[in-house]
Structures are given as structure tokens and as C-alpha cells.
């Protein structure tokens, strides 16, 4: 039996202003304050058009390889619901800004049917009554619809991760599923023939992993029904986080009658070559390109994964990567820096860490003029106060001695003072080297470059 899955994703764009009204696009502010007469659907009001939403949507179109409807208009989707102030939603039915795109995941391309711009509804809070917060009314959304080309939960999850990651790197959305700035609906059907089966929709799933679970559950549920010879009825279901199952919400009415027609209040928008070029010239580097670059620079896979999934860390790395050793930089960022951030629940911008000081530190480590242990001490200091790295080293007397003559002098001194150890070394006893290194560190008051000393010691011992 063959499952077929299509996914619809709504993503809130983080423009300054709303889509078709220029009130503030932030519904988390104080209730019913980011609104104007348009958001309330007052008599006589007409839509505005925020260019920012088109710019943002174009970025997404380019990132997802969509063709672009150069001459586009908007449409009205008519239905009554208390969260819809005008009694219609401004959307794009005839001319979605993007179409025929794809997103690459590890083993295949996920094809996109369309991507269009629309406006969000009020936020409803259900108590004994339903309370309406109009701050969200008119917030810009893009809806991204795949073709029915996904085969299982794993592919769906991979697609959504990639989508989320890319939108995040485009800087056009917060893409937080838990806060509703990314919302996923999936359509699942199973068929035992060449024809597509009857689809069931699972709406508003709360996380990417739940999408995977919901899909796999739906496939199993529908397969079992078909095996039993039962007919699948088109319906809308929801995912239950506790039981990890999907639950029937309602059977689909005989087609929704949204009475779409072109929005007469917003003139055509024509996206010319110049506009498109401006967008493509200003596209940020996206994750695939970053990953390839990091592999070439020799950063290990675990670090790459960590960096990509932490966009702020990645941005920081990008800002220093040409000026210092990328491997050392990535180790510091994914290690000490990230654990410091996680422990304090802050972002890298919230710390005192400056690029210049960080580069200095990496260069010191790179030249081995300080030990990695000292590096850890220093990073913990400069995360807190951005004190100059040179000054920290000087004040704490941390400078390592890498001067060859001095190193040889100390090593010779220690070796000649411990003739027994030479014997042990010749007999192949490891502890001899460890012991001698300890004595060398002690003699140099810990300031000697350990790897250089180690290297020198072994040469001296071999010659002895």
C-alpha cells in the first residue's frame, strides 16, 4: 500500500508592519493596542499594501526555487468567522507569488505546488466566551503548499526541518511552531492502487516531531481500515500529544464555498527584473552553502550541526571566520560559549563577547601561546566583561613559553636530574614521560608550552 502526503505550512513574516495595514506586526504586545481602523474592518476602510511582505515572500521564493508570478493580484476569500474582521481574508488564489518550487532533503526533492501571501486572523481566546485580540489581525503570512510527494513521517520531518532552517536563515520569520509563527497541516492518504486514496487532514500539529508521529499513525490507521475493507471518509483530525494518535474533529462538508474573487481595492503588482535582482543580490548565505563551506574548512560534522541549528552562533562564526582559525573558533563556540549561553538562557548578542577579542583569543590558541585550559579560563572572562585578552594573559601571567632555547634548557635540566627516568623510558615505561613532563611543568611554573615541551622531551630521551 502506498501512502501519499502533502503538507501546508503557514509562516508568519516578521516585517515591521502588518500586510495590508501599517499597524505594528507584533501580537504579543498589550492586547488590542497594535491596531487601527483597517484591522477592525471598520466601514469605509481600504487595504494598504506593505512592500516588505512582497520582498520577504520573494526571498522565500528564491530560496525554495519557485517560479514567480511577475504580474500578480490579490483575491478575497469570503467566509464568516468571529476572528475574521472584514468577513473575508485577503489572499492569493489566482496568482500565488511563487509556484513550482522544490526543497532538497537528503534523498529527494520535495516539490512545492505554490507559495502565496495572505493575512492572519485575530487571536481568539476561548473562556466562557470567545475573546478577540485584534493585534494578530492582518499579520502577514506565507502559505507554502507541497505537491503530494512525501511518503512517510521521516521525510516530512526532514522537509519541515529544512524549511524551518531556511526561513530562519532568510531572516523573514521566527518560525516557532510552539508560538504559532509556523503552523503545519498535513494531508495523508493511502492507496492500494494507482489512484490516490481519500485524504484525511491533520491540522495544527504542535511540533515537527509530532508531524512525523501524526503521519506515521495516520498511515497505519488508514492501512488497517483498507485491509479491513473499510472505506476512508474525508475528514479533519487533530494530533493528540498525550496518546500520540490522531483524533477525529469533523467530517469535511461538501467542499468549502469560499467565493473567491479578485480583490478590487489592491491594484496589480508587477515584479520587474530590477526588483528581483535587488532581492537576489541581497540573499543571505543559506544553510546548504554554509555546511559545504564548513566541511571544506575542516570543521567536524557534530560542530557543523550545532552551529547551523544555532543561527546566532552561526552569525557570530561568520563574522570572525575569515580572521582566525575556523576549527578552533568553532570548537570554542560550540563548546564553552554555547554551554555558557544555555546555562544562562541567553543569546550570544546578550553577552559581552566582542568579535575582536574572540579573534585574539583564537589566534593565541592557534599559535599555542596559551594552553587550551587557559583558553577556557579566558573565554569565561570575556563572555562576562570583554576584558582585553592580552591584558588578561599579562595580568594572570599566562603567557606560555615557546622559545626553543628556553624549552631545551629546561628539558635538559630536568632529564639530567632524573637519570632513573631515562632508564624507565628505554624500557618502554610510559609513566616516565608523564613524570618528566610533570617535573618540566613544575620547573617552568606551568608556563611552558606543553606540546612543545613534550616533543622536545621525547627527542632528548631518544638521544640519551
Amino acid at each position, binding site marked *: 500500500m502506498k501512502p501519499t502526503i502533502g503538507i501546508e505550512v503557514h509562516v508568519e513574516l516578521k516585517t515591521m508592519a502588518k500586510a495590508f495595514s501599517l499597524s505594528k506586526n507584533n501580537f504579543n504586545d498589550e*492586547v*488590542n493596542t497594535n491596531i487601527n481602523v483597517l484591522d477592525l474592518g471598520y466601514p469605509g476602510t481600504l487595504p494598504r499594501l506593505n512592500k516588505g*511582505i512582497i520582498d520577504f515572500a520573494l526571498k522565500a521564493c528564491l530560496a525554495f526555487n519557485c517560479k514567480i508570478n511577475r504580474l500578480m493580484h490579490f483575491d478575497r476569500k469570503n467566509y464568516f468567522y468571529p476572528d475574521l474582521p472584514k468577513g473575508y481574508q485577503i489572499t492569493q488564489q489566482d496568482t500565488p507569488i511563487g509556484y513550482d518550487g522544490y526543497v532538497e532533503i537528503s534523498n529527494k526533492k520535495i516539490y512545492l505546488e505554490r507559495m502565496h501571501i495572505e493575512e492572519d486572523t485575530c487571536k481568539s481566546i476561548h473562556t466562557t466566551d470567545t475573546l478577540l485580540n485584534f493585534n494578530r489581525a492582518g499579520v502577514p503570512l506565507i502559505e507554502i503548499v507541497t505537491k503530494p510527494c512525501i511518503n512517510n513521517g521521516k521525510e516530512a520531518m526532514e522537509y519541515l526541518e529544512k524549511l524551518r532552517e531556511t526561513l530562519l536563515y532568510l531572516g523573514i520569520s521566527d518560525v516557532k511552531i510552539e508560538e504559532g509563527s509556523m503552523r503545519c497541516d498535513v494531508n495523508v492518504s493511502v492507496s492500494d492502487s494507482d489512484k490516490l486514496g481519500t485524504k484525511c487532514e491533520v491540522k495544527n500539529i504542535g511540533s515537527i516531531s509530532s508531524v512525523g508521529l501524526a503521519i506515521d499513525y495516520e498511515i497505519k490507521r488508514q492501512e488497517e481500515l483498507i485491509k479491513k475493507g473499510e472505506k476512508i471518509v474525508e475528514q479533519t483530525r487533530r494530533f493528540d500529544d498525550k496518546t500520540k494518535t490522531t483524533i477525529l474533529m469533523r467530517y469535511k462538508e461538501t467542499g468549502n464555498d469560499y467565493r473567491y474573487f*479578485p480583490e478590487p481595492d489592491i491594484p496589480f*503588482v508587477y515584479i520587474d527584473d530590477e526588483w528581483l535582482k535587488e532581492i537576489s543580490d541581497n540573499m543571505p548565505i543559506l544553510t546548504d552553502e554554509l555546511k559545504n563551506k564548513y566541511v571544506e574548512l575542516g570543521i567536524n560534522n557534530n560542530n557543523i550541526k550545532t552551529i547551523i541549528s544555532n543561527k546566532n552562533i552561526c552569525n557570530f562564526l561568520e563574522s570572525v571566520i575569515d580572521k582566525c582559525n575556523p576549527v578552533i573558533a568553532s570548537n570554542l563556540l560550540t563548546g564553552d560559549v554555547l554551554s555558557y549561553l544555555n546555562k544562562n538562557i541567553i543569546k550570544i548578542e546578550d553577552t559581552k563577547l566582542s568579535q575582536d577579542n574572540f579573534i585574539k583569543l583564537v589566534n593565541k590558541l592557534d599559535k599555542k601561546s596559551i594552553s587550551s585550559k587557559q583558553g577556557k579560563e579566558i573565554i569565561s572572562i570575556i563572555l562576562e566583561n570583554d576584558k582585553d585578552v592580552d591584558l588578561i594573559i599579562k595580568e594572570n601571567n599566562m603567557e606560555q613559553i615557546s622559545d626553543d632555547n628556553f624549552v631545551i634548557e629546561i628539558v635538559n635540566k630536568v632529564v639530567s636530574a632524573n637519570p632513573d627516568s631515562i632508564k624507565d623510558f628505554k624500557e618502554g615505561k610510559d609513566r616516565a614521560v608523564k613524570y618528566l613532563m610533570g617535573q618540566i611543568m613544575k620547573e617552568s611554573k606551568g608556563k611552558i608550552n606543553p606540546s612543545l615541551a613534550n616533543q622536545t622531551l621525547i627527542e632528548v630521551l631518544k638521544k640519551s
Partner: protein
Amino acid sequence: MISEEKVKHIADLAKLNVTSEEMSKYQQQLTDILTEIDKILKVDIKNEEIMISPSNNRNCYSEDVIESHISKSDALKNAKRVKGDYIIVPKVIE
């Protein structure tokens, strides 16, 4: 003649009540209108261009900047059912 069922569906879409007395009148009127507008289907035209509005404007947009808001009291001024800072409606059950 347009069916009663159809008229009910339309009334439901438009959120209007159609009483049993009004039903036959609506059936008749919608049927008449349909006959009238059927005339345009018979016109043979060459162009495929749609005219959404007489306006020739294009690319009428604003830059992404926030303009003024209304006060909370203005927002709630004409609403008939208000609780705290919210406009309310009877509970909508999903």
C-alpha cells in the same frame, strides 16, 4: 427553478435567514437574475484580459514602516459586547 436547498445554502453563506414565506420569492428572483446574467455567457469575446478595476495603478505599496494606531477606547467604542480589553463573542467551539 433554483432549488430550496440551494437558496438555503446561499443564505447560510451570506448569514441571512430565509423564512418559508420568503423562500419562493428568493427562488424566483435568483432564477430571474440567472436568466438575465446568462446573457453575458453568450457574448463571444476575443480577449482573455480581466478588468478587476478601472484603475491603471500598479505597484501601489508603502515601505515597511509602522503608522499610527488607534487608542484602546476607540477600538472598543462601537463594540456591543466587551470584557476588559477584549471584544467578545459567544464561545466558538472547534
